[in-house]
């Protein structure tokens, strides 16, 4: 049926072979199934990764026998890691990729929280005139912003958030991030990444989306409230930014700091339910300028752009028509103070 004759006994195989000799239809079906089998094998092999080195079996035996440890323990993750440069080693290896993934998840959660704030603002809730999330507002150097503007394609602008007067409520945004292979404690730890966000962030009902509005699902999670929070983001301000003229508009830039710029930066994610995983790949040239991007279907978290600070550059990942593009600006100052490199920049309302 699937192109394999299976482990029949000698007489059975002989009988099948005889029948195949005589029956053209069966022969044809077998050939077709065999071809499909080989084709599937070839397709799957296209996804092969370099083979992983098996750790010494004795290490696993020792781990299985170790007292007070079960496979479900977080400490089980401390087992041998294998791979180039680490074969046979015991203990965990510092993995810069996972560290980056951890940091990136924090940055995205911050973006979701900020976007939720924007939604709450739309519902007429009160906030003080000053946007104070426990961090200093930092003005990006003019030349950096100018650099982005110069390079920005039409319709790919960062989010400008209107800040009307309102009262803050106390809540915490909690982000859980697995720390395996980061050199820190194993297991899962909760990080307090924002001291003040809207307490009912996750409870805010989704207003019917305007035809031009972007919707995204945030990943911020208020304490005690589980499930995804849905936010309605403003339309990409290809025109003037929307804002209250008396109170001003703010550019919100969740950032991620790390030393140096890699030769290649790859962001993947499926932030919307049911979305296929997409990827953004950014390459740099020898001068560490971005030289290319690729972004099939990945949507940033509810904002029209996410900023990733990679000193000396800041990358802007901007959404336009469901696509992402990355850009790099000029060298800028290190990002904002505080546990998260979130940058708030007051912008003139009506400017991108």
């Amino acid at each position, binding site marked *: 049926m699937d*192109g394999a004759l299976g482990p029949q006994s000698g007489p059975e195989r002989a009988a099948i072979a005889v029948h195949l000799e005589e029956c053209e239809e069966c022969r044809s079906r077998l050939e077709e199934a065999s071809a499909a089998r080989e084709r599937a094998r070839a397709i799957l092999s296209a996804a092969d990764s370099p083979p992983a080195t098996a750790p010494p079996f004795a290490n696993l035996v020792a781990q299985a026998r170790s007292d007070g440890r079960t496979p479900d323990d977080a400490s089980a993750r401390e087992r041998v890691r294998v791979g180039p440069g680490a074969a046979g080693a015991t203990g965990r290896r510092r993995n810069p990729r996972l560290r980056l993934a951890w940091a990136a998840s924090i940055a995205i959660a911050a973006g979701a929280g900020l976007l939720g704030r924007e939604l709450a603002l739309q519902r007429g809730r009160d906030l003080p005139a000053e946007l104070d999330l426990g961090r200093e507002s930092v003005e990006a150097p003019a030349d950096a912003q100018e650099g982005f503007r110069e390079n920005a394609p039409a319709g790919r602008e960062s989010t400008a958030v209107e800040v009307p007067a309102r009262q803050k409520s106390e809540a915490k945004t909690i982000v859980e991030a*697995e720390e395996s292979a980061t050199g820190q404690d194993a297991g899962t730890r909760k990080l307090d990444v924002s001291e003040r966000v809207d307490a009912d962030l996750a409870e805010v009902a989704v207003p019917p989306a305007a035809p031009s509005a972007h919707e995204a699902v945030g990943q911020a999670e208020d304490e005690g409230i589980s499930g995804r929070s849905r936010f309605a983001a403003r339309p990409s301000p290809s025109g003037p930014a929307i804002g209250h003229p008396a109170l001003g508009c703010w550019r919100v830039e969740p950032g991620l700091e790390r030393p140096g710029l890699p030769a290649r930066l790859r962001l993947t994610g499926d932030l919307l339910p049911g979305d296929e995983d997409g990827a953004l790949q950014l390459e740099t040239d020898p001068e560490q300028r971005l030289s290319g991007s690729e972004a099939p279907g990945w949507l940033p978290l509810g904002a029209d752009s996410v900023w990733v600070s990679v000193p000396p550059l800041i990358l802007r990942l901007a959404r336009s028509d469901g696509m992402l593009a990355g850009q790099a600006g000029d060298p800028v100052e290190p990002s904002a103070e505080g546990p998260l490199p979130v940058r708030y920049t007051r912008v003139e309302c009506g400017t991108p």
Partner: protein
Amino acid sequence: MSEPWARLYREVWDDLVRFLDRKVWDPERASDLAQETFVRALQADPIPNDPRAWLFTVAGNLAKDEARMAIRRRQKLKLIQAEAEDSDPAARPDAEFEASDRRAAVRQALESLSERDRDALLLCDAGLSYAEIAEATGLSPGAVGTTLSRARRKLAAAYEAATGDEESSVAHR
């Protein structure tokens, strides 16, 4: 007690990691989960009747747990840094991108299959017999061949759709 597992460890390590890699799409994590699978095997009492099928069943469940955990912690963004530039900088990116694209297309094609079809296909690719596939998936032994045949056709069609590769359609003619 660990001797049967030791033999199996040598035999199936590569297949198990490949199987897991196509579930979690992270080679390092796949290797971790393979180790965890064997740790659980070593703690299993009594030893299962069909250790090989048992291993892949446990591995598949660990991969599912991994996916659930990823959703729960909402860690959906990965920032991956390229490895050190130790080869021809002009030629490497293209080759890597191509490999990455192929892998993404295979992933997309696999994820378009039903879970049962996908599991049967991956288990078969890992070298399991029909009986073992039936044991691991809950399919009846007689249904394995049909399931595999259907899964292969769908995989080839989905891969072709993802890549524009016409080879798969040629293979079916």
